[in-house]
């Protein structure tokens, strides 16, 4: 008598090169299994003695639907079971790195950028197109600039994350970081000659707040000049400034949108207010109408004076999301130190390479700017 044909059902599928174990959910009651395994799979069936469940385990080598028939016995009757086992590729092996077709897209931007500026401390910055953009031949939307004003001793760092859904956000991010390093030097020279004696809340509003406002105005200008919607240029903006003082260092920052600003100096590393939306991935973008609410802008400004520090860092969410598992973690110095330990010895070229780090599900553009004390060697 020919065997009865049944459809098998497994509890889970497989991934190429990754050990897996799946339970045979159907058919039940098998007392014997005999299989001719496919060549490109290293699999076994074992029966759990206690539960009587059959477990298929091992590894597969090809991304495809494995389909094979095995013979078995149920209630002393022969059966033939058709089993289908889907096998996914290892996602790390299927990312593409496609160049942007700048013949068809305006506002070209290189896939990477890195900078080094020596002042009273050492500033380095690196920005890299994310895997998710490279896979679809999309441009880098992040940007960064750093600047040291030799006349006043101010270090200025700016990073920006152009919105993934905004068509020309690469130009938006470039515009706002350029505005930051163009406008801040003279505003700081005028309003903040000496952090020690200033009414900081007022003068930081007149400098950092004003610069962010000018950056927002520059986006309005872009929209007007190009005839595009303002939302096409949507971007975040983080600015950090630092200056050596008589008895230490002074730091200040302003942030609109996500990403992180932090100072490794004491128990209080975080130098920004969280600006995340209700759902994952939502954030605030820089818009000139934000500046109608003075209190809103004032709340985005933070400042610190410390005798000594290890690093002052600004980064877009492409770096902060994989590096900090939660909001709470951003307030813990341990996380900041763990991050800085990975990059402390890197120069700007090595930092750009480091930005390729692999974390599952984290493939956004990545940008980081770091200021370290004068004794830093790299």
């Amino acid at each position, binding site marked *: 008598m020919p065997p009865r044909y049944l459809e098998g059902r497994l509890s889970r599928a497989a991934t190429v090169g990754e050990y897996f174990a799946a339970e045979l959910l159907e058919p039940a009651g098998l007392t014997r299994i005999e299989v001719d395994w496919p060549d490109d799979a290293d699999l076994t069936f074992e029966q759990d003695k206690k539960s009587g469940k059959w477990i298929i385990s091992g590894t597969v080598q090809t991304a495809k639907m494995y389909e094979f028939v095995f013979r078995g016995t149920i209630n002393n009757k022969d059966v033939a079971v058709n089993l289908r086992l889907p096998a996914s590729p290892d996602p790390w092996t*299927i990312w593409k790195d496609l160049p942007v077709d700048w013949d068809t897209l305006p506002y070209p931007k290189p896939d990477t950028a890195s900078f080094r500026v020596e002042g009273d401390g050492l500033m380095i910055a690196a920005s890299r197109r994310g895997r998710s953009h490279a896979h679809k031949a999309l441009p880098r939307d992040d940007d960064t600039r750093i600047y040291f004003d030799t006349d006043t001793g101010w270090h200025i760092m700016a990073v920006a994350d152009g919105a993934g859904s905004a068509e020309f956000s690469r130009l938006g991010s470039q515009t706002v970081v350029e505005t930051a390093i163009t406008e801040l030097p003279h505003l700081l020279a005028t309003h903040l000659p000496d952090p020690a004696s200033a009414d900081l809340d007022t003068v930081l509003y007149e400098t950092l707040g004003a610069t962010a406002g000018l950056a927002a105005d520059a986006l309005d200008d872009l929209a007007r000049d190009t005839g595009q919607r303002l939302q096409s240029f949507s971007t975040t903006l983080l600015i950090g400034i630092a200056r050596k003082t008589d008895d230490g260092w002074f730091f200040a920052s302003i942030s609109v949108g996500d990403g992180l600003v932090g100072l490794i100096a004491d128990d209080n590393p975080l130098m920004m207010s969280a600006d995340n939306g209700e759902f994952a*991935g939502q954030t605030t973008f820089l818009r000139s109408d934000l500046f109608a609410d003075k209190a809103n802008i004032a709340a985005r400004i933070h400042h610190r004076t410390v005798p000594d520090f290890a690093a002052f860092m600004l980064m877009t969410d492409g770096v902060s999301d994989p590096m900090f598992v939660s909001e709470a973690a951003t307030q813990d110095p341990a996380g900041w130190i763990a991050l800085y330990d990975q990059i402390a010895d890197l120069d700007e070229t090595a930092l750009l390479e480091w930005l390729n780090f692999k974390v599952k599900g*984290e493939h956004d553009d990545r940008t980081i700017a770091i200021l370290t004390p004068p004794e830093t060697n790299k």
Partner: protein
Amino acid sequence: MRRLPVYILLDTSGSMRGEPIHAVNNSMQVLLSTLRQDPHALDTVHIGLITFDLEARVMQELTPLDAFPQVTLETPNSGPTFLGEALKLVQQKVKSEVRVGSDEGKGDWAPLLFVMTDGKPSDTMVFNEQVQAIKSAGFAAMVGCGAGPSADVTALKRFCTSVAMLDTLDGPGFEQFFKWVSDVIADGSRSQNAGAADVTELPPPPREINIVI
């Protein structure tokens, strides 16, 4: 890691018996194998599968795309279409399976919902309740598909953010719809990765699909 939860609700009532359910099974397989070639989707997409006929049941709990097993759907000989119960069940699953962001950890991306039916809801009272409730369940998009001449597209319109219509219950139609579903999911995993949770702007559907809303 932030997951993109995707819930698929499929009508397995008696009228789907035969070629239609066979076509849905094939299309579901094409959907999964297409998504499995997308590294974003492999990283983030988790799929939960619910079927509804004379009851609503979870065929597969929310499962990472790469672990999602081969599933073959079957239909009873005849009987009602408990779409209302399915909407109720998926809300329970969202509550228990989708992670909400907090100070201690990041939440999942807002989930997506896909509903395919070839009939009209038989559990009218439950359905009327659930069409209201599901609007506040937190879905980034709710895509309905009314398949064949008896599909109640008006019922889908009451809660879906987009509704597609298939003229016939055959293989090519379902394949086109599921192809579009995979585009919506892939697009969602991409745009959300890139920092914008805006998936309400769905990618354009294939020409064969007639979008009602």
